[in-house]
């Protein structure tokens, strides 16, 4: 594992910034740097799975990753873009303004290589459908922390069906009180109450 990946995994913020700047000045391929940063984030995810890291470490690593990408992204050539694992829309259901879970999931998904279109909070079903269509996303993630969000999640899945998109779009619902009872009620493909687990589910949605 590279020095950069290890520094990210160890949450050594100043060291990450120093290494990235030095490697850029040395003319290292920015695509290779992106891959090393992702490798570091994969290790962070692994440490979370084993109980060594917590949400706090995910937030800190996400900030470090974002700052590192701030140096690297301007150097990526337009004709050699980083190919996303998949495109997905993420948002909090109508009537619910909780954003913490959604924002952490978006950060982890981006670090894992997904192109995430954040629809925001309090998102009506028709806006979710419109966003999915506009972006050509194949995954929709709906977050909610209130029981009143369940009805809106269900209406969103129905709206996807009405729009003829349900066959090509996987739906995952997430939040602290979301479980299989909610997944069944809503008609989603998966559920989670844990952001890193949600990222693993989304990876399994990607064909091949």
């Amino acid at each position, binding site marked *: 594992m590279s020095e950069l990946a290890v520094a990210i995994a160890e949450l050594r913020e100043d060291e990450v910034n120093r290494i990235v700047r030095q490697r850029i000045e040395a003319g290292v391929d920015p695509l290779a740097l992106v891959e090393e940063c992702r490798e570091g984030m994969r290790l962070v995810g692994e440490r979370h799975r084993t109980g060594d890291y*917590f*949400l706090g470490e995910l937030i800190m690593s996400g900030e470090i990753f974002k700052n590192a990408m701030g140096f690297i992204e301007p150097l990526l050539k337009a004709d050699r873009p980083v190919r996303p694992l998949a495109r997905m829309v993420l948002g909090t259901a109508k009537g619910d303004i909780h954003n913490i879970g959604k924002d952490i999931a978006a950060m982890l998904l981006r670090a894992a290589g997904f192109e995430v279109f954040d629809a925001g909070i309090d998102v009506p079903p028709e806006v979710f459908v419109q966003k999915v269509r506009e972006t050509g996303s194949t995954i929709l993630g709906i977050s909610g922390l209130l*029981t009143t969000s369940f009805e809106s999640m269900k209406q969103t899945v129905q709206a996807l069906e009405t729009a003829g998109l349900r066959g090509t779009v996987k739906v995952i619902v997430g939040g602290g009180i979301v479980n299989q*009872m909610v997944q069944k009620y809503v008609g989603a493909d998966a559920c989670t109450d844990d952001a890193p687990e949600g990222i693993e589910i989304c990876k399994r949605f990607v064909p091949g």
Partner: protein
Amino acid sequence: MEDNLETRINRLETVISLGTPDRVPSVPLIAQFALRYRGVPQSDGYRNPQTTNNALVETFDALGGWDGQLAANLIWVNSSWRISAAPMPMRVPGKQAGDHEPLQAVEMEIFSKEDYETIINRGWNGFLAEFLPRATGRPLEKIDATQKKLLKIYMDDVKTWHEKGVPVLSGATTCDPTMILSLSRTLSQFTLDLYRQPDMMQAVMDAMVDDLIQNVLDDTAATGLKYVFFPLERGSGFFYPLRIFERFGFPYIKKMADAFAGAGLISILHFDTDWTLNLPYLKDLPRGKCICELDSRTDIFKAKEILKGHMCIMGDVPATLLSLGTEEEVVNYCNKLHEVVGKDGGFILSTGCECPIDAKFENVKAMLATARSHTYPGHDK
């Protein structure tokens, strides 16, 4: 024998002091559900406290009653501008939210990093004296007058409940420094502050805690109610490793709970999110002087194993079960709570955090009925 104020107080005090009463008591958090059940828009409830109180009393009667009101109405008690919780913005029904939507906290930065210096130099109350007028555009005298008006309404509603034979518990509301700072800075920014500048964050928390304690002592003296509603969420093992909790969480929770117990008060530790990892620490809090209230994400059965004989447990019928489950599923879950967590007393049945506004009426009724029917040996009906 019909329940009255005395029998209900005795039942609650028995379980809090880890004894076995006649039956399991229940204390649901149910004001928002009561408004919806009575067909009252949430906005009316927040505009007119009397509307909320009427809805609560009618719902109490329709559901067959319970043993205590955590709070008399929708108000968080403060006897003055010296609040002991985060001064965070809310999305209020009828204002920022729709008439029928529940109240929700807005996750946004209301403190800047520069505000930490003021807290270190002036303490929590000194900071509030400078911050509240700046943030609200209102002088302290006006904020103080509003709090006193709300306190008067609260105490009027306390009287109504007591006349009905139902004790009201909360005489003050407080949070630990982690909860206040996380809500005021946002979870993400607070976490970055904590990991980047731990020494400064400890200094901020050290500067807050004595004022938080004193404010609660003042509030409970003003209300005459001896329970402290103490919401905790942001410092749990769901968010941070134990090394963080041991430095920035538990020392302050303990200092506050010890001070409250020393003043004859009971802390209702309202634990949202998963605190399973933190449960062993609670054995260092004063025995029989705190309630461990869980929202269904902490393992309540593990809590019983760890805290049996030390701390009363309250909870934790899941919101999702009350909204989407069947009556039979609710009864089965509650019976398991009574048999395992309620074994030998020390248990209060409650909703896991707030009863959802869209809970099924028959589910809530069935939940409360299980507490009334779960008698302890020697008290069989």
